[in-house]
C-alpha cells in the first residue's frame, strides 16, 4: 500500500493538495484538499452592496467575469432590475463573459494541461529552421529550461512532428488568449478585473468602431479555435485514447445554464439561455434544476459543524482550522444529497440530453472522428473535448450577438438601492455552475455566500462521507508508475480546478 501526496498540484489556479492510497496498482482512496482560505464572504459583510461585484471578482483572476456576472445578477435580483436590463446591456455582458470563456479554455488546454502530454524537451532535436521553434531549441540549449523541466517522465507519446506542432501551438496560444482579453477589454475596460458589468446593465453602450474592433478579434479567435485548438485536442485524444476510459467521476452533471438570450424572465432557471441549465446523469435523461435543493455540508471541511447542511441563502462561513475530521478549506455542495460534476462536460451533456441540435451535432461529430461511444464522454478526454467544442459554440454565437448591438439604444437602467432585500444570481462559469446569494439589511451587506464551480468538483467528503467528484474520479484508477503518477494529475487537471474560486 502506498500513499502518493501531490502538494502542490501545479498548472491549475490556486492551492490544491491531492492524496491517494494505491494498493495493487489501483487507487483505493482519494482526498482532495484546498489549502488556502481568505474569507471573501466575511470581508463583504457591512459593505455597500454595489461593491460586491467588484470585490467578488477578486475571488479569482482567471475567471473574474464569472463572479462579476453571478454577483451582478444577484444584485439585479435584489435591486429589482433583473428583468429590466436593456438588450445592449444583456448582450455586452454576454460578450464580456464569452470573451473570458474563450481565454480560459485556450489557457486551460495549452498552458495548464498540455505539458502532461506534450514534450517540449524533444525540441532540442529540431531541424526545421522555423524561427519560433528555433528560439525554443536555443532556449533549451541554454541549459535552463525552467519552468518546463523538471517534470514526470516516461509517458510522452506524441509522434515528433505532432509534438513539434503542439509546442508551436502552445506559443501561439499565449498570443491567442492575450487577444481574447484585449477583445474583452473593448467592453470591459480592463482585464483582469473588468469594470463594465454593473447592476442595471453595463457602464458603456456600444459604438460602431467597438463593434468592428471586437468582431475582427473574435474572427481571429474563431479561426484559432476551429483550426488549431480543436484539431490539437483530437490529435492528443487519438494518441492517448486510453484516457477515454479513465477518470469517469460521479456521473451526475449539473448546470445553471449561461448566456441570456432574453432578459425578460426574472426566474433565472426559466430564462432562455444559449446553453440551458438542468441536471442529467450518464443516462442522458434531462431533469429540471431547483436551486432550493442545494446544500453545503462541512463535516470534512474546516468550518464549524453547526453551519453544515444549509442552503446558501442561509449559509455561514465559520472557519475552524484543525477541526477533527476536516481536511479541506472547500465546503461540499450537494444537490439533493448528490455530488455533482459541473463544467463544460456537464453543460454539453445536460444540453445534449435536452435535445440542443447544435450541441448534438458538435458532440456526435467529434465522437465519430474519434470512433468513441457516448459513454466515453465521462472521462479525462471527454472533458477536454467538451471544453474545446463549447469554446467553438460560444465563439460562433458571439459573432451573431455583436451584430445585434444598437449604438443608440440604452445599455443601463437605473435603480434605487434597497434598505432590505434578498438576491440570488445563477450562471455558469467556464469551470461550471456558479451561484451568489446576498442578504441586504440597513442598506449594507448582511450576509453573502458563493457556491463556485470548483467547490462542487473538488469538494471533500460530505456529511455522509460521500467523496466529491474529483475524489470519485480518482478512486479505481490504475497507476502504472508511482514515481510518475501521470494518471492522477491528468484526471485532476481535466476538471480545470480553480481553488481560489472554490474556497473564496
Amino acid at each position, binding site marked *: 500500500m502506498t500513499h502518493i*501526496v501531490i*502538494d*502542490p*498540484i*501545479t*498548472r*491549475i*489556479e*490556486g*492551492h490544491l493538495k491531492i492524496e491517494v492510497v494505491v494498493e495493487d496498482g489501483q487507487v483505493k482512496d482519494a482526498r482532495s484538499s484546498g*489549502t*488556502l*482560505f*481568505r*474569507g*471573501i464572504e466575511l470581508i463583504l459583510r457591512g*459593505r*455597500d452592496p*454595489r*461593491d460586491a461585484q467588484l*470585490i467578488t471578482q*477578486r*475571488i*479569482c*483572476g*482567471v475567471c*473574474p467575469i464569472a463572479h462579476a456576472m453571478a454577483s451582478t445578477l444577484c444584485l439585479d435580483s435584489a435591486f429589482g432590475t433583473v428583468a429590466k436590463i436593456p438588450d445592449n446591456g444583456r448582450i455586452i455582458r454576454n460578450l464580456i463573459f464569452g470573451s473570458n470563456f474563450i481565454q480560459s479554455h485556450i489557457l486551460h488546454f495549452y*498552458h*495548464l494541461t498540455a*505539458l502532461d502530454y506534450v514534450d*517540449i524537451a524533444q525540441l532540442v532535436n529540431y531541424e526545421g529552421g522555423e524561427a519560433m521553434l528555433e*528560439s525554443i531549441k536555443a532556449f533549451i540549449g*541554454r541549459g*535552463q529550461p*525552467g*519552468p*518546463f*523541466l523538471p*517534470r514526470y517522465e516516461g509517458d510522452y507519446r506524441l509522434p515528433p512532428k505532432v509534438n513539434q506542432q503542439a509546442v508551436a501551438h502552445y506559443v501561439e496560444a*499565449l*498570443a491567442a488568449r*492575450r487577444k481574447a482579453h*484585449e477583445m474583452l*477589454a*473593448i467592453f470591459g*475596460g*480592463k*482585464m*483582469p*478585473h473588468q*469594470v*463594465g458589468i*454593473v447592476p*442595471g*446593465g453595463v457602464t458603456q*453602450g456600444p459604438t460602431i468602431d467597438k463593434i468592428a*474592433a471586437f468582431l475582427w478579434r473574435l474572427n481571429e479567435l474563431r479561426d484559432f479555435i476551429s483550426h488549431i485548438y480543436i484539431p490539437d485536442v483530437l490529435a492528443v485524444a487519438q494518441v492517448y485514447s486510453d484516457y477515454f476510459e479513465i477518470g469517469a467521476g460521479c456521473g451526475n452533471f449539473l448546470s445553471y445554464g449561461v448566456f441570456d438570450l432574453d432578459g425578460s424572465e426574472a426566474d433565472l432557471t426559466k430564462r432562455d439561455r444559449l446553453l440551458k441549465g438542468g441536471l442529467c446523469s450518464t443516462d442522458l435523461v434531462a431533469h429540471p434544476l431547483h436551486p432550493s435543493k442545494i446544500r453545503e455540508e462541512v463535516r470534512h471541511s474546516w468550518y464549524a459543524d453547526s453551519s453544515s447542511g444549509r442552503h446558501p441563502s442561509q449559509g455561514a462561513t465559520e472557519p475552524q*482550522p484543525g477541526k477533527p475530521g476536516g481536511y479541506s478549506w472547500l465546503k461540499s455542495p450537494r444537490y439533493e444529497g448528490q455530488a455533482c460534476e459541473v463544467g463544460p462536460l456537464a453543460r454539453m451533456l445536460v444540453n445534449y440530453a435536452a435535445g440542443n441540435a447544435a450541441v448534438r451535432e458538435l458532440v456526435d461529430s467529434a465522437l465519430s472522428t474519434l470512433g468513441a461511444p457516448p459513454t466515453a464522454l465521462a472521462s479525462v478526454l471527454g472533458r477536454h473535448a467538451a471544453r474545446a467544442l463549447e469554446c467553438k459554440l460560444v465563439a460562433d454565437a458571439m459573432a451573431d450577438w455583436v451584430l445585434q448591438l444598437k449604438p443608440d439604444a*440604452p445599455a*443601463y437602467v437605473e435603480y434605487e438601492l434597497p434598505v432590505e432585500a434578498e438576491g440570488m444570481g445563477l450562471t455558469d462559469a467556464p469551470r461550471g455552475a456558479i451561484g451568489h446569494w446576498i442578504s441586504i439589511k440597513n442598506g449594507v451587506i448582511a450576509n453573502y455566500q458563493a457556491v463556485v464551480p470548483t467547490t462542487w468538483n473538488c469538494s471533500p467528503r460530505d456529511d455522509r462521507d460521500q467523496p466529491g467528484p474529483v475524489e470519485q474520479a480518482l478512486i479505481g484508477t490504475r497507476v502504472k508508475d508511482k514515481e510518475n503518477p501521470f494518471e492522477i494529475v491528468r484526471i485532476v487537471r481535466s476538471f480545470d480546478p480553480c481553488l481560489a474560486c472554490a474556497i473564496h
Partner: protein
Amino acid sequence: MAKMTQEYPVVWLQCAACSGCAVSVLNSASPSIKNVLVDELLPGKHVNLRFHPTVMAASGEMAIQVMEDMARDLAGGYLLVVEGAIPTAMDGVYGSVGERNGQPVSMVECVRSLGQRALATIALGTCAAFGGIPAAKPNPTGCISVRDAFAAHGITTPLINVPGCPPHPDWFTGTIAHILLQGLPSPDDLDEHLRPRIFYGQLIHENCPRRAYFDEGKFAKKLGDEGCLYELGCKGPITHADCPLRHWNNGVNWVIGNHAPCNGCVEPGFPDITSPFYQKLQDVNIPRIGEYWQK
C-alpha cells in the same frame, strides 16, 4: 565566439492570491510573455522562471524541491516575485504552498526563507504590496504585506512594490527590464510606498482626459452621463498610476475610458479606503473642488 547568456533565475510565489497578477503578466503585449520566458529578454540576458505554480511542469514535492534548491544553491542570486498577501493568523495555518516530508509548508515560512536569500524581491499586486483584498476588514486570516512580513523577520532584502489589482503587465516587465539594464532601482527611483515613480509617480487625476470637465465642475450624475466621474465614485484624485497614458490590454481601453470610476486599486488604501467604489470621495482636499463651489 558567442557571448554567454546571463541567467536571472526567478521564483514566483503565490500566497493569498487570486492569480490575477499572473494572468495580467501573461497579457504582456510587448515584450510578449514568450519573449520574457523563452527569449533573451534583453540581449545577453535571460529571465529564467524556474518556479511558478500556474505554468510549471513539475508537480508536488518535485516542484517544492525546485524552490528549495534555488534558495540553497542560488542564495543571493535569484529574484523573488511574491503574488498575494501573507496570511499570518494562527501561525500561518490559513495558507500553505505545498508539502515537504508530510508537513505543510506555510506561506509565511516560504516568504521568510526565500525572501531572506533573494537578491531582490518584487511584491507584485496590491495584495503582496499592501495586503489588498484578503487583508480588507475584518482580515479574517491576518494577511499582511511582504514589506510587513520582511520587517517582522528582520529581512533587509531590497524590495520593490508593483501594486495594482491587478498591476498592468508593463509595470512588471518594465521593472524587470530596469533590473536587467541598470541593476536594482535606487531609493530615489521609488516612492514612499516603494513603487517605481516611473509608473506610479503621478495621479490618475493629473493625466485624466476628463480633467477639463472636473475643472469646469461638469460632473456625471448617473452612469452614461457625459462629464467627470467624480460624483460617481472616481478615486482618480487620490490614485497614483499612469493608466490614462498607458491604457490597458495593449491599448484598447482603460477603466475611465469605459465610463467607469477609478477604484484606486494601486493604493495602500485599496479596498477599505477607496470604497464604497461608487460613492463620491469624502473629506479630500483636491485643488479646485472648493473653488468651484465657492463661486
